[in-house]
């Protein structure tokens, strides 16, 4: 096959460099730096300085990954997976506890977050495994082995405990299953089940309508009849079991679930951040209050705003225009990823790029949804923008992989 020659040639070229993705990433990173600066300028914190260093390293990482020989990249997959398992074990012993989560390893002046590396490890390992010839996910043993990649990471992350990162791992796993041809009906059940559960806890009528609509959709899909019946049955069981389990819980556990589902029911606890970030976003208006003029940001109404709630800074200070602009940039990034996943001829990159798209999409929907009060509060950062070196380097690596995929692809 002449493929190897072509790849080697193109690997030395810069022609296929994806400037759109590159600039999108740079702009998001700069937007993040501005937001972190604004959120921390009113007190003497070193967050901005540290993030600038991370960003500089990040750009180097981005370029390095982009021009890394793609086979070597693929060859590193299991090593990275292995490293992430080691780090996840290590963090439980030598880690630093921040806000109740044992999630950081102190390295010099920086805190490294192994959970971010675990996301990368799972992504690469699954992409590598499932892109090998004959590894069809529809085979039960392949599905089982794929699940074996997920489980150790999931357990270790939950031990910290870091629900946000765990949910990312699950979302990524499901996304890759979907892309590699797993049964749509089963996936649909898995994805819809949490929503049905939530509906059954909040409103019976809501639950019945949702479950009925979903049953009709399932029955209309192609597939074996017993599977469809099983799918519908599972949903009804989940919907019925939810309230029963809830009622048997102790009051403090119930109130935890309540405030998870509806943060505003607990304005002094977890709802406080959401209430304040909504105020910040809402009071920003169309054009915003101006850089460093956001009153809620400058008066520090949103605790640790520079981490998970960073999106409330640009939306308050640059308004709807700033907020929508950021969504647009993320949209560009995700569509690039999905397009590469569709068009790339390299099976490893096909799965990898889709996984990258899933990671970005999931982070963005959950994080921004949380900031504007549509999603429950989970510790999920906003890619490229939230403060945190490991997260930024992780996202830069993902973006670098997109660049790499674009650069090395053979135009179909």
């Amino acid at each position, binding site marked *: 096959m002449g493929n190897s020659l072509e790849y080697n040639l193109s690997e030395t070229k810069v022609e296929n460099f994806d400037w759109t993705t590159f600039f999108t990433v740079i702009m998001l990173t700069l937007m993040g730096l501005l937001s972190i600066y604004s959120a921390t300028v*009113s*007190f*003497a914190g070193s967050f901005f300085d540290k993030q600038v260093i991370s960003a500089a390293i990040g750009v180097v990482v981005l370029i390095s990954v982009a021009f890394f020989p793609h086979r070597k990249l693929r060859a590193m997959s299991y090593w990275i997976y292995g490293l992430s398992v080691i780090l996840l074990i290590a963090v439980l012993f030598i880690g630093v506890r921040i806000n109740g989560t044992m999630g950081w390893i102190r390295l010099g002046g920086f805190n490294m977050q192994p959970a971010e590396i675990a996301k990368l490890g799972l992504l690469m390992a699954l992409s590598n495994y499932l892109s090998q010839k004959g590894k069809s996910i529809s085979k039960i043993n392949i599905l089982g082995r794929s699940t074996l990649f997920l489980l150790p990471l999931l357990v270790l992350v939950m031990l910290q405990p870091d629900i946000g990162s765990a949910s990312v791992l699950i979302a990524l796993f499901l996304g890759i299953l*979907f*892309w590699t*041809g797993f049964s749509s009906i089963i996936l649909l059940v898995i994805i819809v089940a949490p929503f049905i559960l939530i509906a059954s806890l909040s409103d019976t009528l809501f639950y019945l309508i949702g479950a009925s609509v979903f049953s009709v959709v399932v029955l209309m899909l192609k597939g074996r009849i017993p599977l469809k019946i099983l799918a519908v049955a599972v949903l009804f069981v989940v919907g019925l079991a939810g309230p029963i389990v809830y009622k048997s819980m102790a009051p403090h556990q119930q109130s935890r679930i309540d405030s998870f589902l509806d943060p505003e029911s607990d304005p002094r606890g977890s709802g406080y951040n959401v209430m*304040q970030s*909504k*105020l*910040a*976003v*809402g*009071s*920003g*208006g*169309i054009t915003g209050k101006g850089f460093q003029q956001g*009153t*809620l940001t400058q*008066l*520090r*109404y*949103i*605790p640790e705003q520079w981490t998970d709630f960073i999106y409330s800074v640009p*939306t308050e200070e640059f*308004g*709807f225009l700033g*907020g*929508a602009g950021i*969504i647009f940039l*993320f*949209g560009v990034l*995700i*569509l690039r990823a*999905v*397009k590469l*996943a*569709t068009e790339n001829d390299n099976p490893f990159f*096909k799965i990898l790029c*889709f996984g990258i*798209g899933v990671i970005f*999409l999931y982070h963005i*929907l959950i994080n*921004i*949804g949380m900031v*504007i009060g*549509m999603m429950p509060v989970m510790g999920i950062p906003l890619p490229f923008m939230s403060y945190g070196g490991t997260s930024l380097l992780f996202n830069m690596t993902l973006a670098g992989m997109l660049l790499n995929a674009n650069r090395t692809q053979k135009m179909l």
Partner: protein
Amino acid sequence: MNTPENEIRQKKFWKFWLVLITVNIGMAIIIWRLIDIQVISNEEYKSKAKRQHESKVNLTPERGIIYDRNGKVIASNFESVSIAIDPRHIQDLRGFAKAVEHDYGYSASEIISKVKASKKSFVWITRRADPTKFDKLVGFSDKGLILIREPRRIYHYDNIASQLIGFTDVDNHGLSGLELKWDSLLKGRDGYMIMNRDGAGRLRPAADLPLIPAFDGYSMNLTIDIDLQRIVEHELKTGVDIAGAESGTVVAIHPKTGEIIAIASYPSYDPHKPGGMSSAFLRMRAITDTYEPGSTFKLITAAAALEENIIKETDTLDGHLGTLTMRSYVIRDVKPLGRISFRQAMEYSSNIILSTVANMMSDNNFYKYLRDFGFGIKTDVDFPGEVTGKLPKPKNFTSSTKRYLGFGYGLSVTPLQMANAYGAVANGGTLMKPYLVSSVFDSEGREIYSQNPVIVRRVISEETAARLTDILKGVVSRGTGKAARVDGLEICGKTGTSQQIVDGRYSKENYTATFAGYFPANDPQVALIVMLDKPRTSIYGGAMAAPIFRGIASKWTGANPTTAIANKFVDSTKTNKDSVLVPNIVGLKSELAENLLKNRGFGLTYSGNSQGIVLAQNPKAHSRTINGKIVDMTIVATDTVQSPDAIVVLKGMPLRSALAILNAGGVKTKIVGNGNIVTDQKWSRNSDGSSNCIIYSK
């Protein structure tokens, strides 16, 4: 073409569109939500945010200062500290309660239960406390502890002139006396400042938020001479005690102008603790209460009769040996007198002869003189609660009315009216309007009101006045007023002893003893009335009131009465309370500071430039100093304040002062931290040449 590879490709193509639609729906939902809260509900969120972080802080003005006629401070302010607890935020309640145990009348456990019992966000622990007590709380930082610094009224002479000055309530509103009468001018106008409240509930000033400075109250100069007032009150107290009287009143007027130099009632009260005092102690009785004047009123009868040529000093009249029996009533004298001259009748205070003289005048004519001397009408003195007194109108006169009026019965007068009438005689026959406030000026010393002497009317001729002066001189040197004599000082005066009406009858026990007069005879400077209510030791004005009059006159005039009085009673004993508060001038433009100091009688020296902004002052603001002391101002040029190169050292300065200086210099300021003292500063220059300063305050 249905190879497995193609199938996969097609499937993935189908999935591509599904994913594309999913991504776009997700983004669209977020965008819609942003439009919903940022565009549609923007106003609602905006006002909610504003309500949350903007906090209006009232700025309390400084109440005007009350000075006496010589610029001595009678009433001023000092900074007090009010302490409150926010029960929702207090962290170390036990520690706080222990720290202030018994300072404010509560035990630690009482404080704890008081705070815990409250459902409000604000529990007062104390209001307007002495700031020295607050020292121990300086290191006590707790966000539930609220300290409010407010000015509080201080009366430098305590009881002296207390009914006159009055007092204020805890919110600094005037409740009585001059504090009440002039409250609208003294109180000033509240200012406010919008401050930002941060997420931790701390207040932060911000340069771009509205600030309406408090407008300090107007200050005033009184006609009162506080040293004379003190002498008066001392003599009055002694006299009241000796006489065993219920109370006593003194009014002293400068006859040429109508300025009230001293006005007092005893017993008095401490204006710092007016609570629980009976209103009898709080009233300015010389103005708000009346009495039946008795013999002191004979001067008025004499004035009318002499002016109308009805009688001369040498004309003799029948004293009826002490008893004049009319058809339905009897007039008696204390000392039986035969046929004597009118002058002697005045000296011995004959009721019979004066009633005879009064009866010689027509009703209307006699009444006219009484009205002209100011009886039965308000003097319009600038003090609240003045009463008119009662003077019967001629149409209501009965056959005996004039006879009784002639020696001071059948009417009621205020001591002020009486003193003012004597003042008219002392002033050569011209009645002046009495007044207490000579000028009012704003906090920068600009006069906004001044009271000049007001002539009410000429009542009698100068010649008549001189003759009356001669008669009254005789009363003191030879007659009933001997007890008022002071060596080397010619005093004119008249005694008075009047029965009080109890249950509609003249009492045989309750009397009013008075002595009214003026001095020195050749050029009267003071018209003075002393009145004792229900003296017990002796009932006679000559015996009880005259010695008080003498005591006051001799103390005022000292060893060399004539010149001393001509010098307006200057010599008086200074006390350590004769000091003034140094105003705060840090941050003012130098011209303004200069005006302020000069107007309050300070001298000043400069350090640094002579033009610019006051950077420091010595002595410090709000410290006490003797009036007229020099204040040294360290002044920095305006452009120095503005320049990032020639940095003004703000470190260690109170945040307020630093802000004032930077504001005056037109420097844009940002504050980082929430302390009270500047810990660091950072300058930067704008492209237009102006500069920014970040003040750190930890």
